């Protein structure tokens, strides 16, 4: 590949690419994101390639393994262009039928389409599916259109045109001004305006500066960044190069979580390709601007998502945070000005340069502009990645896009902002999502995890879970976080085990106050949030655990008992045979009884009991009814 030496050469190359591609030829896009691969996407891709070869269609039909389009619930997802026919939960066995019907005969395979659970209507196109309809996908939308390993695919959809525009038509202060005007706020958690951060670095006297991508996505239950890194790495890279140009940095870093090997691979691949094309390296497109990028892998430490800890880790040291007497955009990596932004923030930059700050600010709320990607997970019908304009209500996200709670259960709370975020109850669901709105409700935007909880989720246990996570991930440098969280975890564990005492809540509040006030970094300062927000909205659950040793959600293992309802038991022996502790006594036609002394509360019986019987019940805070007398246990056949 010859280097592209000017913006004109890039444009000519793009036109040449497009003229080679016949837009009417079918192209089969198969999601190769983590969720779909776990559901068998690799087999589907292999089956398509085999079938296309068998049918002699290799010259006219293309296939692509793409990044995640978001609808993980129904993976593997297959989209066939140019008609944009969207097939869900495709298996390798379905492939011959798709080729035969859709590719050769131009007919739609009805059974693989999305069927609306309410209206029963089938949706042919991706955009007709209720999950996608209310979304506004400006960052994520390209994931399904491009092969994540192909720079040509990215160029064909207009890739690197923002970089060309910035380098040839704009001065570096103009680029900075445009980003400032867009009021783009950091997508990683704190929501600090990116333009202001950039300006600080640009104006710092030190001549060597850095730009860094924070791809250490550690929040459990969040995988937005992963989808972008794996699916569209060039969009992040383009944003990073533009950022480097704006602040006069010639070196950039990707700090990628070690748990995302495919992301590391794809980013490295993207960098190599961009270097070959002359879009990275010395004298980019003849502008005189040099830029190089280095990929650094994390090693499994949540705290390294914090800016100063990340930079310390980049320096090859233990990732402990530093006190921020001077902000890292002035004194960061190697004590030099360093702009650190999250993956999604960088991916927004090319869009802002291409379409302008006014376009960007036309979407969103007063203080939060643009769109935001959320990972909608937990007890929700449509699990997946959703991109919505800022200002959409939580209710719309959960019900319109997410399809509500499965299994006819009742909604209890939604947890936003990752481990240091908070839980928002039902009566606050009309809250519009935005940085300041969520903070006011006692939670935060965070990086965009949105975990939905139903009536079966115990809020005390949720608080305990997050505090346990943070205790484990605390780096141990400062006392309020290291010791405070440990004590909070002990008290919360005791409460969930029925050993809570009067005064525990007050003690937890005092420990929280100290951690918030006195911790060194944001991890400790925000760590008590899960406790404080659940206490604020679900105090009754804490009190039930402490005062009555009762878990209202019937979740906490030590506070519940399993019981077989004799009026429903059909003496089928299934539970008795499955019980790992042999705690169920019974026989054919003999109503089963759980020996409470032997029972370990593992819940296997509840899981295996046929739903049409539904004989197993969970009890909490009430005595288990005594066993039936022997003579009443035999089931006599009803006439």
């Amino acid at each position, binding site marked *: 590949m010859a280097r592209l030496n000017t913006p004109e050469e890039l444009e000519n190359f793009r036109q040449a690419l497009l003229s080679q591609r016949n837009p009417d030829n079918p192209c089969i896009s198969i999601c190769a994101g*983590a969720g779909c691969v776990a559901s068998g996407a690799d087999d589907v891709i292999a089956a398509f390639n085999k079938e296309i070869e068998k049918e002699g269609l290799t010259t006219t039909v293309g296939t692509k393994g793409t990044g995640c389009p978001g609808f993980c619930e129904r993976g593997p997802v297959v989209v066939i262009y140019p008609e944009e026919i969207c097939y869900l939960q495709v298996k390798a066995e379905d492939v011959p039928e798709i080729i035969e019907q859709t590719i050769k005969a131009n007919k739609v395979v009805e059974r693989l389409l999305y069927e609306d659970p309410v209206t029963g209507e089938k949706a042919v196109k991706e955009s007709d599916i209720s999950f996608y309809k209310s979304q506004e996908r400006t960052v994520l939308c390209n994931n399904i259109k491009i092969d994540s390993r192909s720079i040509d695919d990215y160029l064909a959809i207009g890739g690197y045109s923002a970089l060309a525009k910035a380098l040839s038509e704009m001065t570096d202060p103009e680029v900075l001004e445009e980003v400032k005007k867009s009021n783009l706020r950091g997508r990683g958690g704190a929501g600090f305006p990116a333009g202001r951060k950039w300006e600080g670095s640009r104006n710092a006297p030190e001549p060597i500066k850095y730009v860094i991508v924070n791809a250490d996505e550690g929040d*459990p239950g969040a995988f937005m960044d992963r989808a972008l890194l794996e699916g569209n790495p060039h969009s992040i890279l383009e944003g990073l190069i533009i950022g480097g140009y704006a602040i006069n940095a010639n070196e950039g870093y990707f700090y990628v979580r070690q748990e*995302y090997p495919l992301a590391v691979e794809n980013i490295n691949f993207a960098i190599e390709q961009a270097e070959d094309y002359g879009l990275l390296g010395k004298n980019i497109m003849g502008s005189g601007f040099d830029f190089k990028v280095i990929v650094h892998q994390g*090693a499994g*430490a949540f705290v390294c998502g914090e800016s100063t800890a990340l930079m310390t880790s980049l320096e090859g040291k233990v990732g402990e945070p530093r006190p921020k007497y001077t902000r890292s955009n002035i004194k960061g990596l190697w004590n030099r000005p360093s702009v650190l932004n999250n993956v999604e923030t960088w991916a927004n930059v090319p869009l802002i340069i291409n379409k302008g700050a006014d376009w960007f600010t036309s979407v969103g709320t007063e203080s939060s502009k643009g769109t935001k990607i959320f990972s909608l997970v937990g007890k929700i019908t449509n699990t997946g990645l959703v991109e919505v304009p800022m200002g959409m209500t939580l209710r719309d996200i959960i019900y319109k896009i997410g399809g509500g709670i499965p299994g006819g259960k009742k909604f209890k709370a939604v947890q936003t902002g990752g481990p240091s975020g908070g839980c928002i109850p039902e009566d606050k669901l009309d809250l519009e999502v935005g940085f300041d709105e969520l903070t006011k409700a006692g939670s935060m935007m965070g990086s965009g995890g949105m975990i939905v909880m139903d009536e079966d*989720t115990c809020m005390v246990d949720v608080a305990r*879970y997050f505090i346990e996570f943070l205790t484990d991930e605390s780096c141990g440098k400062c006392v309020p976080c290291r010791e405070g969280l440990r004590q909070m975890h002990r008290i919360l564990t005791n409460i969930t085990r029925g050993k809570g005492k009067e005064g525990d809540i007050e003690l937890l509040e005092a420990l929280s106050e100290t951690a918030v006030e006195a911790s060194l970094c944001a991890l400790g300062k925000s760590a008590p949030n899960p406790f404080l927000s659940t206490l604020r909205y679900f105090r009754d659950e804490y009190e039930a655990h402490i005062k009555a040793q009762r878990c209202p959600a019937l979740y906490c293992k030590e506070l519940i008992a399993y019981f077989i309802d004799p009026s429903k038991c059909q003496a089928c022996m299934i539970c008795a045979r*499955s019980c*790992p502790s042999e705690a169920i006594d019974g026989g054919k036609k003999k109503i089963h009884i759980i020996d409470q002394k032997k029972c370990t509360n593992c819940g296997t019986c509840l899981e295996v009991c046929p739903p049409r019987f539904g004989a197993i019940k969970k009890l909490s805070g009430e005595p288990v009814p005594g066993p039936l007398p022997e003579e009443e246990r035999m089931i006599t056949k009803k006439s």
Partner: protein
Amino acid sequence: MESEKIDQIIDKHHGEASSLLQILLDIQSENSWLPKEVLVRVSQKLDVPLTRIQHIATFYKAFSLVPKGRHKVHICMGTACHVRGATRILDTVEEATGIKAGETDLDMKFSLETVNCLGCCALGPVMNVDGKVLGKMSPVKTAEALKTYE
């Protein structure tokens, strides 16, 4: 692990002390654990005190200072999996293998780890055995799955 291989990895990173983390990661992925001799070799080659290497090797979760079993079982304890019952999956594996998270059994058959999110929340609760993701697990399914490993 042969010292030649270690030297190769170090050279790949131009022998820079700032690449210490990346060097250790490469060794970890090559050898699946970090034996003491290897750490000593790295310390000498990079001229970095062994204490600093120990500090790093014990701080980051990706590193192991003990050998791993033939099958690596990872239970996802991410929030989405947690609310869908990941604890019960972990309990089942601990019961079946007789080891706790972070341990390896005496036969070197299984190593058990918990992880914080594998990014396939739609399939939760999820476990990963030797890189293969097993989704929508239940205690019964988990116990069955473990029986298939030799």
